């Protein structure tokens, strides 16, 4: 029994199990946000007309307005 005066039942598991879905979605939204920020940095306030991302070669092409 620790300082808390509680001896936890070690036979049960309280891990929250569904992290993957929402964490993956958060990562995806952050990725989109990063592309938007990159477009603003490269093209300025006018923004980009289109963005082509080549995931295989890690290259992104921004067509500015």
């Amino acid at each position, binding site marked *: 029994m620790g*300082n*808390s*005066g*509680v001896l936890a039942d070690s036979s*049960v598991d309280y*891990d929250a*199990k*569904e992290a993957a879905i929402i964490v993956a979605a958060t990562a995806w939204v952050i990725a989109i*946000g990063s592309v938007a920020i990159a477009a603003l940095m490269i093209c300025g306030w006018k*923004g980009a007309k289109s963005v082509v991302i080549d995931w295989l070669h890690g290259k992104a092409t921004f067509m500015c307005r």
Partner: protein
Amino acid sequence: MDFFTESLGIIHAGDVVSLAPRLQVRQRMLFDHANGARHIISGKARDVLNVLGKGIEVSQWYAYSIASGLTDSEWMELIDFLNSIGGIAIRRTRKAQVQIIVQRTRWRLQGVTLQSHASRFPATHRAIAIAVSQAMSQLAVLTIFVSMLSIIAGMPSYALLSLFCISILWFTTIVHEYMHVVISKSSNHTPVIIVRGLRLGIVHHQLSRKRNILSALMGPLMGIVSAAILGLIGWAIDAHVVAEASRVVCIFHAASWLPSYGDGQALSKEITSFRKGYSYEKTTTTSTQRRRTTGPA
């Protein structure tokens, strides 16, 4: 920053705290009826937990705990333990909620990350929707921000895609969780849902191997199927952004089967224990056969 916030970040002065649903203090035990856990508690801790019954204001609870003989660190560790099992229900006013969100954001920007409160919800239709909404609230704020940024950057299609994605994700995650709850309830147990920040999980009694595998397979599968149906509807009505968003959401649900995450972890655990059991059975059978063959003729 007040004393309670500074030490834990879970509860704040002015909060009314109580024991979460499906938890019960009896004699020297804290029973969790959601998963059948029996936590052993000391006499002092029992008295302190007993007063939580109908809800008590944090400063009153603290005063009672100190009067019962708990030291500050013991009291904090008790709260820490309760939070680890989603055992504290907190009631606070809307104004206090907003103030705390603003405060926490400010501290996070300064590099101070406080513990988040683990909320426990009963496994009802409405509660599942509330739990999923709570887990996704930060993501929703982020999505709105990113969508605005995408519009400013001249990429409205990205904004639309993000907004559809989060809406489809919200609906299909409810379906995903609902499937876990249904399978758990089918073995006559009443599970609970625990939400910790972005993480959300169903706490239930130990299921049979068959049901556990079924639950780990069917949850993500129902998420994928419901996203695929929405995608097909989008495709049929020429709303290609819906079809595209559904495809992304299908990938997110499939990610639940990765061995490092919940459903995938449960599956790999069951497969490993099945293999161990199988190899044990095989060894036992082989040695029995050997005994039979090497026994006296």
